[in-house]
């Protein structure tokens, strides 16, 4: 347990250097970087304009001019995947932000207070867990109508109890430690102790959970936009591209192939990144290997 404390005193550089010795971290980092780069570049440049419909170019198989072919409106699939990456990342990232921003304070609060506050908060957690993310998304759409923002809210709400649970579990293991006792003896209140001592010590856990929820968010967003509840056309999204591909699969199977690969590689990259991070940041696990 004592070496977990020393981790937080390691410099960021040395943690990074150690992380890059982990194979999953490196592969995950490369995959994630590629997707992030594609999304970033799409703001300035895409091979073709995704809002322009060129009917004469429709349903072209992959070629030198259109790497991933074109869809039923003559739009370039590669450009669509680049812009779709932007959408996926934005939705999943904001949803993780909502989950962390609300869940972590709630979890830390529950751990710091204990008693009935803890019990009540955890029962609220159970309540949210009883609604599968997709189901709450469907309900939210029933009220506010489909769209990227509502997809973010739906996925974000589901992230709150996840982070609350992780933060509470982590914080509960920190509170009985001697340095917390020392901090209390010096007259620090629960709020200050949480910020100064608990949070830095559970940051590892939260970071790893963050990558996992990020990956799950990408999957959930794809699912929602596939059934038409996510980003609305003409905004390209990976899930929507798969929906459009389904009816044309017999003549153009490549349409379904590339958006799917984009999702798989992104999620795979994030999961590997998370694995690599938890190996690096948790010395207890590292010793087991």
């Amino acid at each position, binding site marked *: 347990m004592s070496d977990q404390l020393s981790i937080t005193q390691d410099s960021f550089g040395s943690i990074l250097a150690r992380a890059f010795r982990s194979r999953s971290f490196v592969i995950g980092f490369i995959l994630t970087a590629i997707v992030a780069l594609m999304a970033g570049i799409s703001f300035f440049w895409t091979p073709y304009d995704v809002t322009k419909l060129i009917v004469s170019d429709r349903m072209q198989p992959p070629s030198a001019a259109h790497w991933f072919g074109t869809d039923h409106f003559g739009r370039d699939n590669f450009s669509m995947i680049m812009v779709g990456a932007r959408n996926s990342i934005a939705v999943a990232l904001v949803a993780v932000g909502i989950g962390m921003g609300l869940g972590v304070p709630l979890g830390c609060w529950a751990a710091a207070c204990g008693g009935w506050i803890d019990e009540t908060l955890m*029962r609220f957690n*159970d*309540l949210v*867990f*009883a*609604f*599968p*993310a*997709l*189901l709450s998304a*469907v*309900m939210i*759409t*029933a*009220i506010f109508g489909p769209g990227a923002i509502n997809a973010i809210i739906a996925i974000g709400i589901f992230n709150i109890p996840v982070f609350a649970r992780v933060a509470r579990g982590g914080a509960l293991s920190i509170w009985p430690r001697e340095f917390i006792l020392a901090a209390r003896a010096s007259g620090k209140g629960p709020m200050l102790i949480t910020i100064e001592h608990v949070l830095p010590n559970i940051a590892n856990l939260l970071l790893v959970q963050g990558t996992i929820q990020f*990956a799950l968010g990408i*999957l959930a967003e*794809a*699912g929602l936009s*596939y*059934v038409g509840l996510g980003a609305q056309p003409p905004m390209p999204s990976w899930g929507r591209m*798969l929906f459009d*591909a*389904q009816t044309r*699969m*017999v003549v153009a*199977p490549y349409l*379904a192939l590339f*958006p*799917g690969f984009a*999702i*798989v*590689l992104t*999620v*795979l990259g994030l*999961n*590997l990144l998370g*694995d690599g991070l938890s190996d690096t940041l948790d010395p207890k696990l590292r010793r*087991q290997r």
Partner: protein
Amino acid sequence: MAAYLVKRLLVGLVTLLAASIVVFSVLEIVPGDPAQLMLGMNATPEAVAALREQLGLDLPLIWRYLSWLGGFFVLDFGRSYTYSVPVSELIAERIVVSLPLAIISLILSTAIAIPVGLFAAARRGKAADAVSMGLSQFGVAVPNFWFALILIYVFAVWLRMVPAGGFPGWSAGLWPALKALILPAIALALPQAAILARVTRQALLEVLGEDYIRTARAKGMPWRYVLWRHALRNAMIPVLTILGLQFAFLLAGTIIIENVFYLPGLGRLIFQAITQRDLIVVEGVVMLLVVAVIVVNLLVDLSYALVDPRLRSRR
């Protein structure tokens, strides 16, 4: 144990009650008058008012909530606004598709995941472990509806072994009906199996480091017996927890998968109801799924005690 059981049941009930309030109030704030919707825009105000009275929409909010909630105990979920049939009838028609689908995929995923996890844990650090865990890492990342599209292309379009979608109904015979559910079940099960296999392996690795495993091996017990009899049983608690969570995922997953395969299940029903603003159907289906999730999690909690006798006395 009895005290624990009672407490767990009470918590489950309170969660259910809270969930019903959430569902009811969320759909209560949706704009639009069901009576107006059913009669169309040209209906006279008198006709709308009459229908509102008939549907009980003019009653106070709390009264409507209580009668809606009370209905659940006698399986009366109200009448559909668009079809004018009891919601319970619509649900009964659809659940015979969704429930078998969820159960088949749960069985499939368990049947794949536990042997793979066991296999990988037993050969920890060897090539077989690396390959199966690499594959599972890939499986976790595959969206089930994309996997479904690939399955349709290979087995329905290309090999023509199974239908690409639709459901003939159980009256068409067991085999044709099962045939229509095979691809959706596989599509749902495989990504879940990948997660479950990883959890099984991890749980087993932790158990295999215990003293009693060493003792069992030292007294000459065959490795295979040690694995199945001692290790797997003790590794069951995390596996059961994930299985319970997965059931919720599978139920929600059917919402999307049913759309891929055009299966007339609860998922399709909820989508139709949303597009037709048939909110009472949405409420009914959502509540049913929430009840299922809560009950399954309750069962999982209780099953811990079955798996681990130590927990029986401790609580």
